[in-house]
């Protein structure tokens, strides 16, 4: 059952929001071993289901990453440090609720959304629904797991350096990192306030589009425009670096895009090799600054990996952020020119499928690399330039999902989701579901 189908059925009163919320709450309990949720708002959600506004998401159960404030529910950021009970919703949550959505709970994340594995030492790892011994990716790993295992009809994640796209690809669901500035970040625990973006993770591009309509009034969907005549640039260096089986899936997806009428050609993205360094130079000092009061008083309470990154940000020379900011302008300007002949850029969303929990390295291009470092080239360029990127499922390697990334021009989410939707109308990768516990969702 997609979010789009739920919207239709709830609007036609084929079933009630309370019925739908009850089914999802049962599934959350039955699949507690996935550790997708940090807190569950069972009583509140059932009560709210009785009195949701008659908006476009009337009665639809959603869940949000636990760095995003929901009034009256503790925000932990999967940390030992944060226990904020916010008096008001983050704007993103307020907009979903104003559209009629019901918030089921808060989802697991990498500690303070500052990492790619969602293996918080304080709340435990989120488990990939396709193989419980594997990571979900991160930092919005709980959002990826919940969307994949039907533990919410739609979810919110945040993305600084890939945190929506990584779990979407590794969990076999659809996620959209919107343009910087499209969805307000207030009420969201920051990583890097000039790079952070809040966005949806759900089953399909159509579902993400419905969520984005509520999140961003400026967004005008154009899902049925098709791919005819669309100019798509393939970022070949990112295809060449992938695990061969993942690369083969991406090539098949490109063939499908061509069949659907797109013109796919090679795109040259200048200085793409520098994007990771630039992003680190911007992000690390901003994160350290945001955490400085806690670094002074609660340093030992951070997990080791997050503590190291925050301290690195604190101890970089002051010139690092300046170099990063100048580098960002340089890279973004050159990228804009390189983007000119295209409507979209594409590449494999990630170079590998989800590795086992506890495995720090992956093999890419014959090299053993830290998982975190292997992902940087796939995520940093577009985050730096503030562009919208969707990750859509494009197949499986040994039972584990892989994704294709579609990158758009700034504030052109409509073309990104239009292409994703056209691809998903022609394929069924996004409809595949892992085996989960509990009563399956009714067909409704």
């Amino acid at each position, binding site marked *: 059952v997609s979010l789009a189908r739920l919207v239709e059925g709830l609007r036609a009163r084929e079933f009630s929001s309370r019925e739908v919320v009850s089914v999802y709450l049962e599934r959350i309990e039955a699949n507690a071993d996935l550790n997708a949720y940090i807190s569950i708002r069972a009583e509140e959600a059932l009560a709210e289901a009785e009195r949701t506004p008659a908006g476009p998401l009337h009665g639809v159960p959603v869940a949000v990453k636990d760095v995003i404030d929901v009034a009256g529910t503790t925000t932990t950021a999967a940390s030992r440090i944060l226990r904020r009970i916010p008096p008001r919703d983050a704007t993103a949550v307020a907009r979903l609720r104003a559209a009629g959505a019901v918030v089921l709970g808060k989802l697991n994340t990498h500690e303070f959304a500052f990492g790619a594995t969602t293996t918080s030492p304080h709340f435990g790892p989120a488990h990939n629904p396709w193989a419980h011994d594997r990571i979900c990716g991160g930092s919005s790993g709980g959002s990826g797991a919940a969307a994949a295992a039907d533990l919410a009809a739609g979810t919110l994640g945040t993305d600084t350096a890939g945190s929506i796209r990584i779990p979407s690809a590794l969990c076999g669901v659809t996620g959209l990192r919107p343009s910087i500035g499209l969805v307000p970040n207030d009420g969201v625990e920051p990583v890097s306030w000039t790079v952070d973006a809040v966005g949806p993770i759900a089953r399909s591009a159509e579902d993400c589009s419905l969520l984005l309509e509520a999140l961003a009034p400026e967004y005008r969907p154009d899902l049925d425009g098709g791919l005819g005549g669309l100019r798509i640039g393939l970022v070949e260096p990112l295809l060449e670096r992938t695990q061969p089986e993942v690369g083969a899936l991406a090539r098949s997806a490109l063939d499908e895009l061509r069949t659907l009428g797109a013109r796919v050609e090679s795109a040259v993205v200048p*200085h793409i090799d520098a994007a990771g*360094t630039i992003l680190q130079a911007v992000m690390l000092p901003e994160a350290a600054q945001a955490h400085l009061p806690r670094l*002074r008083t609660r340093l030992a309470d951070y997990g080791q990996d997050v503590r190291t990154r925050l301290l690195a940000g604190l101890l970089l020379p002051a010139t690092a952020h300046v170099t990063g900011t100048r*580098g960002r302008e340089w890279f973004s300007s050159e990228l804009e020119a390189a983007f000119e002949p295209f409507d979209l850029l594409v590449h494999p969303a990630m170079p590998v499928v989800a590795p086992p929990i506890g495995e720090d390295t992956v093999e890419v291009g014959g090299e053993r690399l830290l998982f975190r470092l292997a992902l940087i080239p796939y995520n940093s360029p577009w985050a730096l330039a503030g562009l919208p990127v969707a990750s859509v499922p494009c197949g499986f390697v040994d039972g584990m999902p892989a994704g294709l990334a579609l990158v758009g021009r700034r504030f052109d989410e409509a073309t990104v989701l239009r292409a994703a939707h056209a691809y998903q109308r022609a394929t069924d990768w996004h409809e595949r579901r892992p085996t989960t516990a509990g009563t399956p969702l009714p067909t409704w």
Partner: protein
Amino acid sequence: MGTPTESSSEELLRRLAARQGVEPTDDDLAAVRAFLEILLPALVELAERLAEAQT
């Protein structure tokens, strides 16, 4: 125990952290030093590329 150069780098990092009111452990400093040993040369190279791009 690290080499004398490593120990000296970590001592410098400790003093920089202390001036900002932060007190990392020896293990923290060793991890940060290893992290920065990768990032700082990349930043130097980036600064050089930016300078070239301006000329």
